[in-house]
């Protein structure tokens, strides 16, 4: 029950952030993919099952915002949540470099998938490539920075699996 409450709170916070402050930034051409960031962070902390669930729920709500393609965000985010959750047992999760690489890959995958729908194919691949590249790097940099600041302020690990020995699975 506590887990569901935390999941609902995180979903609301992410969706509100996406539709307010980040929407203003996106209008100025700075794309911060908070959906991918939140899914990666959640999956790193909670594992594959919760990661997939969070990604699916977040994606479904995000899909309801758009006019078409219900299930577009849900599919890619649930897969990302699952994959990152599976990897979380074998990675040094508190390493900013690991977080950066994970965020770059996850954001690039998410943005490529959604941009393919919006652009109606790959004929505008240059625009899409630029958007994916800048969005991935910006999200990864900002995401790793946010996680690092939270860890420093909290004075303890925020990603639960980090306490586990590398390579061990739950």
């Amino acid at each position, binding site marked *: 029950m506590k887990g569901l409450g935390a999941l609902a709170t995180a979903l609301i916070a992410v969706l509100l952030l996406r539709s307010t402050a980040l929407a203003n930034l996106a209008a100025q051409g700075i794309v911060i993919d908070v959906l991918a960031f939140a899914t990666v962070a959640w999956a790193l902390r909670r594992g594959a099952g919760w990661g997939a669930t969070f990604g*699916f729920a977040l994606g479904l709500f995000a899909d*309801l915002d758009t006019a*078409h393609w219900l299930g577009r965000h849900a599919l890619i985010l649930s897969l990302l949540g699952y994959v990152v959750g599976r990897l979380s047992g074998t990675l040094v999760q508190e390493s900013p470099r690991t977080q950066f690489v994970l965020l770059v890959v996850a954001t690039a995958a998410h943005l490529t998938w959604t941009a393919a729908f919006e652009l109606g194919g790959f004929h505008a691949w240059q625009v899409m490539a630029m958007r994916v590249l800048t969005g991935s790097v910006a999200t990864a940099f900002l995401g790793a920075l946010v996680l690092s600041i939270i860890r420093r302020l909290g004075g303890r690990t925020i990603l639960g699996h980090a306490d586990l020995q590398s390579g061990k699975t739950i």
Partner: protein
Amino acid sequence: MGGVLPPAERRSSALVAVYVILSLLLLMVGERLPQASLRGIGAFMFAPFDRVVMVMDRVGAAWVENQELHERLTALSLENAVLRRSGEENRELREELGLPGYRNPTLRPVEILSLTGEPTPAAATLSAGSKAGLHLGDVVVTSAGLVGRISELYATQSRAALLSDPSVSVACEVESTGVLGVVRFTLSPRPALMLTSVPYADTVRVGQRVLTSGMSRRYPRGIAVGRVVKVGQDPDGLTQSVVLEPAARFTRLRHVFVIPGPAGAEGQP
């Protein structure tokens, strides 16, 4: 594969398989679902949170605006202190030179009942008359500048001739240069507020403000009348033709102020 993976991973694998199948189903048949209703439910659920965010946004904007207003208030307070000192100095200098001092006029708020005249109003009916202490010839102004003067007086109402009435003329001067002239409204060659009787030798520039000069008995000195928008030459070549943009908008008058003039000044220019 199911037998190789630990139970927790089997569960998560099954879960993600369900999510993937659901997502694919939605992608394929999602267009047939009542998406408007679903979005309506979503909007209803998120409405309280949106409201909280909106309130926070407004509070943030108010905070920023408050800081700006504080800065502006401080700047204006400092400017006001300088102006007060300058005013005091000006009063002392005028006393030493034997010049009459400025007085703060008494302002009486009055409502505009109607405007007459097409296309530019030339007269206004005011909601106060002689019972309210108004006199013939009293000056009518707004915060923007001069509007006209009271031309007809009744017990509870009065009528003001506006600056846009061709029969009204006001002695004026150009701010800072002190060039004198008479402002009147002319109908030909096209309707315009003009500063007339300005000698050709005087310099008048576009953008300069024109104020009442105090040369006529009724109009106190320093009331804004208009701004110079065009400077030309009269056909006779002796005076200039100066077109003004009125300071007060005659077509948007709702409330005005009457400055009571000295008794017995009726009919004075």
